[in-house]
């Protein structure tokens, strides 16, 4: 696609000569218009990616993305940035692998460096049961076109020298290795998409809260917002933890509960870990950011919560697991902890679906695993909104709960982080 101004080393050098006073807005600040072909509510990664692919894949550019706060300010900017697609069930593997492959070229596609770092992800097996589960995943992945391998403890140690293989409780029995998984810079994903959407002529409207959804004859007509009313032909609700509130405005209920999920980072240290490790038996996962911070994912609360704090005992459990798995972290210091509100569905898999309201679509329920899915989720949601169906999205429809057609990832002994 065409960008107003391409980013490059040359552009930086040029701007340096004029003290960087020539840079322009990353995305335009435009007023809300009266009518759009499509409106996306929620300018997080998933919402922005949906808009991007509506434009890029389906030629729909009269689009607004409405954001109650600031874009990328929800879970997009609050996660541990892990990208992997080594899921067990076909529909999950398909959409996460689509996402992972799109991450590989995202910096080039968006002309914005999202720092996708395919450094590899290991999911540790620490019980025989877990080992069998991951071997099953590896077999499934081979048929799903997802490149994963079952690796030995020695190989785990080679890839991650700071690991303690011989924990007295749960010695490492091996791992599921996805060499092309990794991490990316979360904020940059939102900013890069916002810039691309803006350059396609879409309106990214921040500080715009949706206060009502207008419909007629079971079809969506438009929205009431804090910046005035607006009409639309199609509506996509992509607001993660706040989905229940929007669904209520649209007149339907969701199989979703919102809970706080926590994460923390340590103070930065020199590079010591080149891969992402997830240890599900002991509930800990960790990677090292480019800045040097150890990025650590904590657990989710078991009770409904909208306050982005969460309970500290989850942090304690996670840190214990990490001190056991990586004993050298003990004398590092926790710099910052925070929480995000994640929306959990009945089977812990997402919803990308039509809704009982005509031309109103919803994308939510990513639970603890949303960031890694962003481009795939946007791709599938855009296709669903544009065409009324999408092979990637269809299995994640709302009716699966009535039919008992679960997409349950916890079965592989892994949890869906």
């Amino acid at each position, binding site marked *: 696609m065409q960008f107003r101004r391409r980013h490059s080393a040359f552009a930086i050098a040029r701007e340096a000569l004029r003290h960087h006073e020539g840079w322009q807005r990353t995305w335009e600040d435009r007023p809300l218009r009266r009518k759009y072909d499509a409106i996306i509510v929620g300018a997080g990664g998933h919402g922005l990616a949906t808009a991007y692919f509506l434009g890029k894949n389906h030629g729909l550019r009269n689009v607004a993305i409405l954001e109650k706060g600031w874009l990328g300010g929800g879970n997009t900017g609050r996660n541990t940035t892990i990208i992997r697609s080594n899921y067990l069930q076909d529909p999950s593997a398909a959409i996460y692998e689509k996402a992972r492959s799109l991450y590989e070229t995202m910096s080039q596609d968006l002309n914005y460096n999202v720092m996708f770092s395919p450094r590899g992800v290991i999911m540790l097996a620490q019980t025989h049961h877990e080992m069998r589960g991951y071997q099953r995943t590896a077999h499934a992945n081979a048929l799903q076109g997802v490149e994963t391998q079952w690796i030995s403890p020695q190989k785990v140690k080679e890839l991650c020298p700071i690991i303690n293989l011989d924990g007295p409780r749960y010695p490492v029995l091996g791992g599921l290795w996805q060499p092309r998984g990794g991490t990316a810079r979360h904020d940059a994903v939102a900013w890069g998409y916002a810039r691309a959407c803006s350059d396609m002529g879409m309106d990214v409207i921040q500080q715009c809260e949706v206060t009502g959804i207008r419909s007629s004859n079971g079809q969506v007509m438009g929205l009431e917002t804090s910046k005035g009313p607006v009409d639309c032909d199609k509506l996509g609700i992509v607001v993660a933890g706040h989905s229940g509130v929007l669904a209520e405005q649209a007149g339907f209920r969701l*199989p979703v509960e919102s809970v706080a999920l926590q994460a923390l980072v340590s103070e930065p240290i020199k590079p010591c870990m080149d891969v992402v490790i997830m240890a599900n038996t002991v509930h800990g996962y960790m990677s090292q950011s480019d800045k040097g911070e150890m990025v650590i994912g904590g657990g989710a609360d078991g*009770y409904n919560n909208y*306050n982005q704090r969460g*309970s500290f005992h989850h942090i304690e459990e996670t840190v214990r697991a990490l001190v056991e798995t990586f004993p050298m972290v003990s004398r590092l210091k926790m710099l910052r902890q925070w929480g995000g509100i994640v929306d959990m569905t009945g089977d812990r898999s997402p919803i990308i679906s039509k809704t009982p309201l005509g031309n109103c679509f919803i994308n939510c329920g990513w639970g603890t695993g949303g960031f890694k899915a962003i481009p795939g989720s946007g791709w599938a949601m855009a296709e669903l909104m544009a065409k009324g169906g999408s092979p990637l999205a269809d299995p994640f429809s709302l009716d699966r*709960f009535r039919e008992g057609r679960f997409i349950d990832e916890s079965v592989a002994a892994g949890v869906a982080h």
Partner: protein
Amino acid sequence: MLILTCPYCGVRAEETELAPGGEAHLKRVDPEGSPEALEEYLFHRANPKGVHFERWRHAYGCGKWFLAARDTVSMEVFGTYPAQISEPPQELIDTIRARRPGWEPV
């Protein structure tokens, strides 16, 4: 880190002594029920930003399940009550109304 008073043993128990159990007052649907009712029972959950009725078990204490009314944003606990009841007690409803004018039970 929540603290809730167990109505059975009177202990002000901290969250780590408790196990959360989801939405309270769900009505079980038996095989006679419609698929819609079953879906509702199994999956649809009240997910309010505000007053929520929920289940907790005093797992590391007396082992009893009890119910609580809590605000999911401010975390204010309006009250806890025994689980052997199919609707929240009127007294508690009144307390919540006093604390949250305009709130109505669903």
